[in-house]
């Protein structure tokens, strides 16, 4: 009797397990074939001299294992200079992430008040996020031209016209600003988070005589830390992969070869692989890219325990 029941339970569990694997076939295929196997392959390719010649139908050269040559190349070859790419990518990502978080939090706090037309404004701020990134870049390119409207406004105030996208000092803040403009998804998430901050906390603090500035820093921000963490992470992952501005407009410039002010890691990889046809080297860049992204994710996760405050978390 007892063992019979156990057997039946076992059969049910097995049936459930079989169903689960069937439902997961797409995910299993995706995770293995288009995510983790290619990840390993990318590292492998980085140690070979794979280039476009290997794909020629007529007597392709034998594929050679070259050890760390590609890795040394990308750091020492002045026309690749991956250090510059790492630097500009991190610079852009930090500007864009910090800008996006501050801007979206500011707007979310304002929209969280009793203002008329809240849904309308939320939609207004969200729309730039859903526009095609290439079109967004092209639009801003025209706005920022020498004789474009933004320079006209600047000149009306008596300032000199700025070559926003052709100057190595202004190009990055400008691109980061455009990225901030498209961060409407963060606003929506922050707004929802703000509505979940318990009112009683604010009321209690108010009775204790805290002004609204103090309440924002001592109550709103701590309650929002889990959401800030989520937004930071998502924003970081997206902005480290920045490529469209370079692809659509700046082509890695301004700045000489290997010194391009917008030669982002992903753009450098695109050029090495798909313009120069050097897949081995590009694989090495991909590996470096992976390490940079992993380091940032690690820093964020490692420090998160210290500054994230979970509600209902009693131990203090």
């Amino acid at each position, binding site marked *: 009797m007892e063992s019979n029941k156990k057997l039946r339970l076992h059969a049910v*569990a097995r049936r*459930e*397990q079989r*169903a*689960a*694997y069937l*439902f*997961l076939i*797409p*995910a*299993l295929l*995706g*995770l293995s074939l*288009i*995510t983790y196997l290619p*990840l390993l392959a*990318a590292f492998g*390719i980085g140690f070979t001299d*794979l280039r476009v010649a290997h794909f020629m139908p007529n007597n392709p050269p034998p594929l050679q294992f070259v050890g760390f040559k590609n890795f040394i190349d990308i750091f020492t070859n002045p026309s690749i200079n991956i250090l510059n790419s790492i630097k500009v990518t991190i610079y852009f990502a930090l500007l864009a992430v910090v800008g996006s978080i501050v801007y979206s939090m500011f707007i979310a706090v*304002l929209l969280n*008040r009793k203002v008329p037309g809240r849904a309308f*404004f*939320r939609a*207004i701020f*969200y729309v*730039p996020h*859903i*526009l*095609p990134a*290439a*079109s967004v870049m*092209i639009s801003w390119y*025209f706005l920022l*031209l020498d*004789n474009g409207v933004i320079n*006209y406004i600047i000149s009306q105030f008596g300032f000199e016209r700025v070559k926003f996208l052709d100057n190595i000092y202004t190009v990055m803040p400008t691109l980061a600003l455009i990225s901030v*403009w498209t961060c409407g998804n963060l606003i929506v*998430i922050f707004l929802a*988070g703000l509505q*979940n901050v318990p009112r009683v906390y604010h009321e209690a603090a108010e*009775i204790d005589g805290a002004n*609204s500035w103090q309440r924002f820093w001592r109550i709103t921000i701590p309650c929002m830390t*889990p959401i800030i963490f*989520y937004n930071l992470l998502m924003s970081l*992952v997206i902005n*480290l*992969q920045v*490529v*469209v501005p370079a692809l*659509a407009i700046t082509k890695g410039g301004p700045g000489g070869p290997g010194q391009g002010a917008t030669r982002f890691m*992903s753009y450098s*990889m*695109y050029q090495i*692989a*798909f313009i120069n046809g050097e*897949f081995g080297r590009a*694989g090495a860049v*991909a590996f470096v*890219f992976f390490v940079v*992204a992993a380091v940032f994710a690690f820093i964020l996760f490692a420090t998160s325990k210290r500054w994230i405050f979970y509600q209902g978390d009693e131990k203090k």
Partner: protein
Amino acid sequence: MQENTRKGAPRVQYIKNKRRGAAAANVIAFIVILFLAAGAVFPLWWMLRSALMANTDIFLAPPPFFPKDWLWTNFILEPRTFDFWLYLGNTLTIVVPCVVFGTITAVFCGYAFARLRFRGKQFLFALCVGSMLLPTMVTLIPLYIVWSRLGLVDTYWPLILPYLCGGGAFNIFLVRQFMLTIPKELDEVASIDGAGYFRTLVSILVPNILPAIIVVALLIFITTWNDLLQQTIYINSPHKLTMATGLTQFMGSYKNDYSGMFAATCLSFLPGVIVYLIGQRYFVEGIVMTGMKN
């Protein structure tokens, strides 16, 4: 404060002051929002305004805020320069299968993670979440090599097939999170009534998580619609160009046809905006969902 609470009249006065202060703050907040919103909309308005103007008027100084004549005919672009309908058709050839099958498979996988027990669940889910943090750039080159070995470069398959695998980890994650909020008793009732896993999913859970499903569909729409890099890499033939690649091509070759350029850009905005307006209500709800349950 304490004196205020003890006596009636001063307390009323205090609350009145407080309310007046809050109302004033709301007015200020509204004005600031109005300014910021104007700033956010301005680039879009400027594109539309420029698209409706004659080529010679666009860069006049001072720049007119409204077009002198509203030249809607600018939107009728020569197919030679920007073949809107061809690009739209091509892009939809990629986007529609991605959205349909990506959404379906995301629901399947999300269901397995949310409801079913199986060996290796924790591990698989960790792999799934981990792949969200992995830059897609890293896997681009091996994938390109495989696709070119298969002879599928310059076809739409490399852009479509990856989306048939659950539509990306993020979407699987989103479906799972949403399903976890649906009480488990609902599917238990169904299974007592003799419904299998598939029946339970389709007839009980899918109707309950419809907002999440719409969000997943919209997110896949937006990512596939916007994927300039992969479309640039895989598509070469002029008659296979998509909206994004067609636009960058136009940008490169017809730099002086400004009003045409602006009109083409505005047209490329349109499908996304329409899709967003249709699903707006669900969109907000679903995005909120991803951020809340972490």
